């Protein structure tokens, strides 16, 4: 009798733990959606709405189109965004990457840009990723101040090389899209 009670208790406890973990996971998911995703969607929806309704989108697209329309243009875009002076300024919250991405998205929606451009474009809009965050990121990894002094320019210079390389690799991998 005692064995059965123990067995049941163990099952109950195990199930409780799993359900508790899942419930907590659901709570975190909803938190992330409400705190991070929905506000950004509201912001993006407003911007896209205005851009589409006013025709500003067409004007911006005319500026971006020549750059976005060819792999070489995208390499140039990644070089500009990856410049060590610009990249830390363009980094915060990935806001710039998200806005340019959404603008390009409207061009894919109308098929003004071919689908195979999407993959290199994802890398061309983002060579600055994390460039605003290098000292903090290194500090999170418990780096010495000297490491930060060397590490910040090292990452910034590296982006100037690896940014265009990323676009070219993505272009190669976009075959068949």
């Amino acid at each position, binding site marked *: 009798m005692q064995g059965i009670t123990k067995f049941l208790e163990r099952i109950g406890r195990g199930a409780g733990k799993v359900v508790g973990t899942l419930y907590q996971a659901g709570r975190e998911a909803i938190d992330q959606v409400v705190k*991070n995703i929905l506000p950004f969607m509201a912001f993006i929806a407003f911007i896209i709405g205005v851009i589409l309704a006013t025709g500003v989108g067409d004007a911006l697209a005319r500026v971006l189109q020549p750059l976005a329309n060819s792999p070489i243009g995208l390499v140039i875009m990644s070089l500009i965004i990856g410049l060590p002076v610009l990249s830390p300024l363009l980094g915060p919250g*990935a806001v710039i990457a998200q806005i340019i991405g959404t603008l390009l998205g409207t061009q894919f929606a109308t098929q003004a840009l071919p689908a195979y451009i999407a993959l290199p474009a994802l890398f061309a809009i983002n060579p600055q990723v994390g460039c605003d965050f290098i000292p903090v990121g290194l500090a999170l990894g418990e780096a010495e101040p000297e490491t930060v002094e060397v590490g910040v320019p090292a990452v910034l210079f590296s982006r100037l090389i690896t940014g265009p390389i990323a676009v070219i690799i993505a272009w190669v991998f976009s075959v068949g899209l």
Partner: protein
Amino acid sequence: MDFLVQAAVWFIGLFQRGAEVFVGLVTGIIPLVIVLLTAFNALIALIGQERIDKIGEAAGKEGFKYMPLRYLVLPVVAVFVLTNPMAYTMGRFLPEKYKPAFYDAAVSFVHPPLGIFPHVNPGELFVWAGIAQGVTTGYGAAETAALAVRYLIVGLIVIFIRGIVTERITAFLWARRAQ
């Protein structure tokens, strides 16, 4: 009077267009993201931090053959489990000279998985979703799925290259500094 009416219609039209976009985003993206986030949050809670720490300790070793561990396995696992920005804390297991390169590899991996694993960086979902949403509208969902997989694969290659290049540049700058 007509002019006023037209102006009013145009004005509210600006926001109606935005509202349509918003509804599309909310119904198209949010339900899937919520379910995925829940699943991965639970998975991460079950895996636990201690197991990840062990990979970090191994990745700090000297030598060429530990590069894939340092700039591929460790950043991927760190970003996947700890997510942005806590993933960068895994750098604490590495020698100082490898920390900038690890940061570079890890931070470059916070967007490529977004098409399949949005939990790694839900706050910056639109680096991916902006383009993906347009591709879905213009070319269909299958095309977007193919794009998501390729984004992840190219991301893996790029972070590995970035780790190696940044490690070299760090070594170069460090040597110059010492003189």
